[in-house]
């Protein structure tokens, strides 16, 4: 549930390995990175922040893929409709972003 916001790690706190400073459009806050120990982010990475803790790393690749799908939304269907209009066999509904069970989110550093 609840309010979680993307923010960029702008620095790590010296002497406190689990703390980072995250910036959300010009606002900075110390954020606990302890929930990301299995895949610790570095300065420059984007994370999702909820109640002062980083919950997840944000995958730029997944975000870009999603934007791409959103951009072509409707285009492929329109093309399909046209093709169907010619009486050609239905080539199948366009797959959505995919449900890949067991697929781990790729982590990537931004920039």
């Amino acid at each position, binding site marked *: 549930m609840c309010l979680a916001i993307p923010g960029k790690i702008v620095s790590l706190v010296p002497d406190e390995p689990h703390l980072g400073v995250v910036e959300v459009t010009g606002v900075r806050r110390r954020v606990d990175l302890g929930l990301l120990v299995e895949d610790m982010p570095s300065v420059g990475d984007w994370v999702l922040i909820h109640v002062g803790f980083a919950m997840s790393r944000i995958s730029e690749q997944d975000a870009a893929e999603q934007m791409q799908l959103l951009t072509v*939304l409707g285009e492929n*269907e329109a093309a399909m409709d046209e093709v169907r209009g010619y009486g050609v066999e239905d080539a199948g509904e366009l797959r959505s972003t995919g449900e890949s069970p067991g697929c781990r989110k790729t982590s990537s550093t931004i920039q």
Partner: protein
Amino acid sequence: MRYVDEFRDPELITRASDEIRRLAEPGRHYRIMEVCGGHTHAIYRFGLKDILPENIELIHGPGCPVCVLPMGRIDDGLSIAQKSNAIFAAFGDMMRVPGTHGSPFEHKARGTDVRIVYSPADALQIARRNPERHVVFFAIGFETTAPSTALTLMRAKREGVHNFSVFCNHVTIVPAIRAILDSPDMRLDAFIGPGHVSTVIGCRPYEWIARAEGKPVVTSGFEPLDLLQSIVMLLRQLRAGEARVENQYKRVVPWEGNLAALKAMAEVFELRPHFEWRGLGFISQSALRIRKEYAEWDSEQRFDVPETRVADPKAAQCGEVLKGVLKPAQCKLFGKECTPEHPIGALMVSSEGSCAAYYNYEYRKTASLVTEISSVA
């Protein structure tokens, strides 16, 4: 701003809503429940109902941790703080929630030391800075928030901060969804799955909804494009007669969840045999309590808890609205005795409760207005 503005692009939003119109079969009425209070809030905040076709009905689910918290728990938490002259720390969401003898803010006006915190870590910090006072952190939230409370307790124990304890009201989302589906009045076609809870528990816990109940689930982000894309994905499944769990919020939700977060929760918490949910009654294995290894940091084990139980007024139809059986405006008290300023029932006390969201954002719109989108200058 990255990862936010892109998902509010007006051009893409129009494209997505056109696709929804194309996919929604005329003559078919779709009932889609968004489980999560954050989604309810987003739907109203962005006015998404205005751009969906008439035959798609969004039903608001029970995923509002403030709404489902029984009033007696607020009474108990405040009572602990008062009796031990402790600092009562809680999120802003809790401050105006009425207890039997007033809300935390009202208690503050009468002398209880009530403080708003943004993070459980901040509550622990207050304890460090005030060694002569005890701090009771009133913890609420689903699995999104529980790991942060868990980590905070682990830090308190490791550092030996003894003037800190947590009054734990964390609840789990799957039992609530089960309660909805078990309800005899329920007729739902599909679910917009929780977004941020899923960053912790992953997408597997929803597989039974698709498999056993035959309803598609798409875990969704919170921006307008996220929600619209999720609806597209649900409609595609429904058209094809499929029922699967899909992850629309891939950029943030890992299919397997967050192992470190789950480990922290398992270390600190265990399931209560049962817990009372406001509006839904007792649900077994649906809430967390602190393990005895952390007894010293558990307000319930450290202090006497009155165990107050307060029934909602009979006229309040919160349970039915929570289950999506009634719309907020259909409750007899809505907008009259029960408003955000003087809430009677659970769903009016939190800004993401369906009644409050509807009241604040939608209630006074007239039909003629919603089709107008014009520039102004």
